[in-house]
């Protein structure tokens, strides 16, 4: 089973994280008119690195270039508003909508890649 899981690579973890992030961005959009609401978000790359079994790419030689580590550890963060509004709400609809549509596209690409890998496996199993 493990080799099949390895075959999917990071895309299964990425899909779960993208879906979590979609829900967070939906919460932000839902609260666009609520006074004092603070928009939240996650650092996607840091969260993905945190759930990957291997973590960051390790270096075994001093000529290897180390992957830039992220200290946030993938937790929930607060968005820094570009133009804060008077009622203390930090949701900026344009920003949230762009992040949401980007996240949706990236979810779809992970999904497409997973589908390709599954159909590749299926044709290998069938041997046609």
């Amino acid at each position, binding site marked *: 089973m493990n080799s099949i899981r390895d075959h999917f690579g990071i895309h299964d973890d990425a*899909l779960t994280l993208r*879906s*979590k992030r*979609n*829900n*967070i*961005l*939906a*919460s932000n*959009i*839902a*609260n*666009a*008119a*609520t*006074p*004092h*609401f603070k928009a*939240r*978000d*996650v650092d996607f790359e840091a969260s993905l690195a945190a759930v990957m079994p291997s973590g960051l790419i390790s270096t075994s030689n001093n000529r290897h270039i180390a992957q830039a580590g992220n200290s946030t550890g993938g937790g*929930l963060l607060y968005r820094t508003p570009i133009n804060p509004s008077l009622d203390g709400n930090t949701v900026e*609809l344009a920003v949230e*909508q762009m992040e*949401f549509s980007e996240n*949706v596209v990236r*979810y*779809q690409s992970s*999904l497409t890649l*997973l*589908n390709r890998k*599954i*159909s590749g496996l*299926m044709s290998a199993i069938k041997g046609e």
Partner: protein
Amino acid sequence: MSGIQNIFDISGRAMSAQMTRLNTVASNLANARSFADSKEEAYVAIKPLFETEYASHAQTSGLATVNVRGIVPSNLEPNRVHLPQHPKADAAGYVWGSAVNVEEEMVEMLEASRQYQNNLEVVSTLRSLMMRTVNMGR
């Protein structure tokens, strides 16, 4: 109230909050030109009071939706209008007009309907993603 589990809870409740807001706008606009005998009887515009409702696991998941805590009257004052021919006019010919700012209500209506649309768009996008995920590997 039950907990917030998924996107349908988040956007559904946000949409119903925006719908409440649209309903108050409709009530205010409907009463924009109504008159009363006294200041106390005059119509005062009403506004919904929005508050964030966090999911029980919001510390880790970040999920939050909107709740309408209540409907409160606005702080506008009814204005005294001189309309001697009005059946409700007093001896000096004055009636009390409702405290509604029509321009403000129109802006409120546009904003509420845009935010309703935004939430609807989020639900339909995520719903189609869910359908594609259910069909994964076919």
